[in-house]
């Protein structure tokens, strides 16, 4: 069995910010059903480029859910500039660590965030 930290367990048991934001102004998606990992991130970003809401939908394992959950927690209230500083390491640290086989979940979270912000700038254009 994976050696998940209590924080990971708390987050896959009771993930925060699950669902869609219907009026999101940034949406990102990454992964594929074939590989068994799909992350979808929705952000609501205000005129001051502050993230006022974040939600996710994830098809994946416990650590994928937990990583997604803490990502949204970290994002809410942050400026885009600060959000860009989030790395997969930030997520791992927040979770108190991940089994090495599960590091890729945090990487996917970083990627879905990048996708999301790319989508935000594209929409703004």
């Amino acid at each position, binding site marked *: 069995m994976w050696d998940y930290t209590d924080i990971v367990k708390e987050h896959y048991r009771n993930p925060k910010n699950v669902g869609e934001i219907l009026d999101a102004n940034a949406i990102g998606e990454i992964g594929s059903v074939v590989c*068994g990992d799909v992350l979808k991130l929705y952000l609501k970003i205000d005129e001051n480029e502050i993230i006022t809401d974040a939600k996710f939908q994830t098809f994946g394992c416990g650590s994928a859910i937990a990583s997604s959950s803490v990502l949204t927690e970290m994002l809410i209230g942050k400026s885009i500039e600060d959000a860009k500083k989030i790395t997969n390491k930030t997520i791992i640290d927040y979770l108190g660590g991940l089994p090495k086989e599960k590091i890729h979940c945090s990487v996917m979270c970083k990627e879905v965030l990048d996708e999301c912000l790319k989508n935000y700038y594209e929409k703004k254009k």
Partner: protein
Amino acid sequence: MNPYEKIIYFDNNATTKTDDEVISVMLPFLGEMYGNPSSMHTFGGQVAKDIRKAREQIATALGAVLPSEIVFTSCASESSNMAVRSILESNPEKKHLITTQVEHPCVLNLFKWLERHKNYKVTYIGVDSEGQLNLDELKVSIKEDTILVACMWANNETGVIFPIKEIGKIIKEKNPNTYFFVDAVQAFGKIPVDLSDGIIDLLSISGHKFHAPKGIGALYIRNKIKLRPLLIGGHQEKSRRAGTENVAGIVAMGHAAELAVKYLEDENTRVRALRDKLEQGIISKIPYTKINGIGTERVPNTTNISFEYIEGELILLHLSDLNICASSGSACTSDTLKPSHVLDAMGVPFSFLHGSIRFSLGRYNNEKEVDYVLEIMPQIIEKLARISPFRK
């Protein structure tokens, strides 16, 4: 925590609880009967007799074969490595092997290794969408230089039973010089395993799958076949397997084999009814659900259920939080990230593939446990469906 405040153990294909009777039979050998069976004193000699008895019990449980056809090992993985390597070593000139795409890693990974490192050509026979073996494919694959066919009797993940005697006959008809090794780890104790007809040349079982402790297994090897030891050293097991005997484990497995035969009917009536109730309940209560292998013969205790767009590990973790033990395929692949090679071979669609759970019931399960799991599963799946980007 589930209301019973104890484990609901639906993971009997991974390992089983040692039977209390088995424990009491083995305890003396952890205690006062600690002699070495090879020793030249009565204290050790007595232990040798207890090993002899256990060997007879295993031989009887396998359909009254000869006790000398049983070699004790530390697990079925050792049995299969020993069997396969022995046959290959005795027949170095023949280089073609056959197995199935759905074998346990202790055969599959061994064959892949032989292919990669030892110049063997391996044919991996496929299965249909129910997990049933493609016999025609097998038939055409057997050739003059096919030295060995290795095939499981019942699949650990789906419970699907292969028509092993028919397979054996096909092999011998096409090439009487091809050896037939059967992995009966998941068959023994669930369906009758009778080797008296001589169709099977070598066969492996593992004690902990039928209520003996972990760390003991056996290999059946037909008395006409010379076994080349994998462990070379002392003269134990008639020089077929070196190393001081795991006496307590051997005695335990002997008794457990006797019990397995005795409980075979319970397994095929009561346990089967529990399994059927569980899977029918789940399929009727939870939409987007699929029972893998339901269209063919299966052992009575196993059900493998796929939930579309829900990830299996996540289901298991939520079940575990409620003290319910289940599995997503074989225990020894659960630490890997790949989806089940068995379901993959069956062509289970990706949307279902990653969301597969195995419940494997057994001797100590009861209807209350099934009812509780049936009550809780829809709640778990509903909760997880909300997280999934593809559901609702």
